[in-house]
């Protein structure tokens, strides 16, 4: 076996490890998550029975933790797609090990985020009215459109590059896993055998999705921001909200990606593939976006604050020095400047530093979403006392259940789907080797001979090995 084959075999065994080996700790973690989700479901049943009165949302502050969670999760979902699509489009070679995880985060976070809209509705069955009586002048309608489009697109974008790896799993694991998973691999791999024609067609599908998903993702979070900025509310009256939301979405998305990567790397010993380089690059991305967010925030608050109007003054006071000051300054100092500082100081330019930055960013972005939603509604429209809002136990339970559900879906997906794009990583590795030693005859040959990508060549023997009848 040449070195490339050895390298690839190692990668495959590492990738299939979560699928094949399950420790008791996995089950403990899984039950823990199910417990939390179960509590959320139980609390939701109360809301279902008694209505939204079990929350603290009332007529004046009518959006709270649920909408915060909605915006937060939709934000996280930008991790995947934007990271993986932009990196793919810009042919950043280091992206290969990162993309799959990022794409999974996207699909899963979107599912969770979209369900928070339903949870926020006192009469969830009325969601159908959007389809029956939807008016396209309404930003809510744009949101439904954008998120439906994004969800479909990101599932396809997750699925298409996974086909060769699913085929690999089909060939390698069929006799090692149960019937359920075998069935999944066989159906989802749609007869992938890695012929040049298939490769070409798949390449087309991926390129189309890669290019189309970038504007879709940008539009999604812009439209989410429009739900706020197209409402007559002092705190939301901003033309830069779209930029703020999209940048914030990528920001929190990258942070979440870093966290998930760090955990998986630790558990499944993927140090070899998720190297310090990947974390640092993503860390730099965090720092860059942190700096950009600072810039956007200055734009937002300076233009408003310079010509401060009466309602704006109230909004500013509650944000800068009163009720929400802690959240706000934590967000600015910890969440936006924190990552910049952590990446600037050589000592903290480590994986741990990046992970700390990511935690800061995720917390800060959650707080940002919270105070944007709540402070915007809190500004009185008439001279009356400002309303107050504090999420109830039901709301917290459901929110935490949302987080747990997000993790649960990823936890389950790990056991079924290939978390690395084996074929893309092999491709990249091959390229790297050939770039390093173009004079080396052996490697050059192995490159020109090529490997049928995503499928073990020659394929017939593999078939028989792959649990054929």
């Amino acid at each position: 076996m040449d070195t490339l084959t050895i390298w690839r075999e190692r990668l495959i065994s590492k990738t299939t490890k979560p699928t094949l080996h399950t420790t008791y700790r996995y089950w403990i973690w899984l039950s823990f998550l199910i417990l939390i989700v179960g509590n959320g479901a139980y609390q939701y049943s109360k809301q279902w029975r008694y209505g939204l009165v079990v929350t603290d949302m009332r007529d004046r502050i009518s959006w709270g933790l649920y909408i915060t969670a909605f915006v937060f999760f939709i934000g996280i979902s930008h991790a995947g797609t934007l990271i993986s699509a932009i990196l793919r489009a810009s042919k950043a070679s280091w992206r290969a090990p990162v993309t799959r995880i990022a794409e999974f985060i996207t699909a899963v976070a979107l599912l969770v985020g979209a369900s928070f809209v339903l949870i926020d509705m006192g009469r969830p069955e009325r969601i159908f009215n959007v389809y029956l009586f939807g008016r396209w002048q309404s930003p809510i309608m744009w949101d439904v459109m954008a998120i439906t489009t994004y969800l479909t697109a990101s599932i396809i974008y997750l699925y298409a590059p996974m086909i060769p790896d699913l085929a690999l799993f089909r060939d390698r694991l069929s006799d090692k896993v149960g019937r359920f998973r075998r069935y999944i691999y066989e159906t989802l791999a749609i007869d992938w055998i890695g012929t040049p024609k298939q490769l070409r067609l798949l390449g087309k599908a991926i390129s189309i999705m890669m290019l189309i998903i970038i504007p879709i993702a940008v539009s999604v979070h812009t439209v989410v921001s429009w739900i706020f900025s197209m409402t007559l509310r002092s705190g939301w009256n901003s033309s830069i909200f779209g930029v703020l939301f999209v940048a914030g979405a990528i920001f929190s998305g990258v942070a979440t990606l870093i966290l998930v990567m760090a955990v998986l790397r630790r558990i499944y010993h993927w140090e070899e593939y998720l190297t310090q380089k990947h974390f640092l690059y993503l860390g730099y991305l965090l720092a860059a976006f942190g700096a950009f967010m600072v810039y956007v925030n200055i734009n937002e608050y300076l233009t408003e604050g310079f010509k401060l109007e009466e309602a704006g003054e109230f909004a500013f006071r509650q944000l800068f020095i009163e009720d929400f000051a802690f959240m706000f300054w934590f967000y600015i100092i910890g969440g936006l400047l924190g990552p910049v500082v952590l990446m600037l100081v050589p000592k903290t330019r480590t994986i741990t530093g990046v992970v700390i930055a990511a935690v800061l960013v995720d917390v800060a972005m959650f707080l940002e979403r919270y105070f944007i939603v709540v402070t915007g509604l809190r500004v009185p429209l008439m001279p009356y006392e400002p309303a107050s809002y504090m999420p109830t136990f039901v709301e917290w339970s459901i929110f935490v259940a949302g987080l747990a559900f997000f993790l649960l879906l990823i936890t389950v997906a790990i056991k079924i789907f290939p978390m690395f794009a084996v074929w893309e990583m092999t491709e990249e590795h091959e390229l790297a080797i050939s770039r390093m030693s173009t004079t080396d005859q052996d490697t050059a040959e192995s490159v020109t001979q090529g490997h049928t990508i995503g499928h073990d060549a020659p394929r017939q023997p593999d078939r028989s090995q792959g649990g054929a009848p």
Partner: protein
Amino acid sequence: MTVATRGTARTLAAICVLVAVAVMIEPALAAGIEISVGAPGTVTVGQDVEIKAVLVQDGQPVEGAEVAVTYQAALGGESARVELASATTDETGTAVMFYQQRADDNGEMQVVYVGPEAEPVAPYTFTIEVSPSGEQLYTNQSGVSIPFVNGGLVILVISGVWFFIALAAIYIVRVGRAGRDETTEPVTASTEAGSMWISVILATAAIVTATGMVIVFVRAPVANTHLTDPHSYTRTPIAYMGTTYPYIGFGLDDGIGTESGDAATDGGVLYFEYACASCHGLSGQGAVIGPALMDEIGSFGSFNEDVREGPKGMPAYDEVTISDANLQKIYSYLTESG
């Protein structure tokens, strides 16, 4: 000097006499004025209607009289007379009034005499049959309309995006097909049935969702603009309340709960029912709009006069709106509680 003064005085006296004669001729007009009306028998909603009124007094045309055409408007369970148009008669005693038919039922219509005489003139009552039309009368005039920047563009963009998504899905279907073409024998037992269904489902889902979204857009019920049917929404009646017609409070003046027998108690109820409270405060203590009534209310005579007249910002309540008896009750409520 003296001559000039005398001459001026004489001229002034002459003018005065002329004016006096003119003034004395005028008041005779009001009595016995008769209104006759020419109006179409049926109109369609949205149509411009012409109402011609001729005023005659003792066989002579009445010039310079103001008349108005009104109809019985019903809104939210309440009904009131609403002015549609008004005009002043010319030297032939004719006033031509135009209005656009908005309601789908006019009820009893009237041409009423508004002025200049205070003496009541019997209104001319008539009916016009209204046939409905699907036409939308009210379109939003606000905003800037830019050619091509509209719902059609949005649909174009959405369709474009979904076209590419569907295209990608179709490529995935073809990936599966390419695999099956190359394989002579089935890959595994279950792929024999054709594991391609997953990609077919994907493509179908993408296409169906895309079409569905466009359909939602196209058939969205929209008030002001609509892609397929610009007039498809049910109109809400819009009533224009004329200024010359008495204020009737908030439609609560039906006298419910005023049979207690005690004038002051009933008066308290009426005070609310005629919405006096909305301006004069909950117990007549005065509020943002109207002054306090309890203390400086004075005699019933002056009270009555004030209410009938409607001083300054206050609407005038005539005898038809509030009967003297009811006003008396309100008066006793205010005096006894004050």
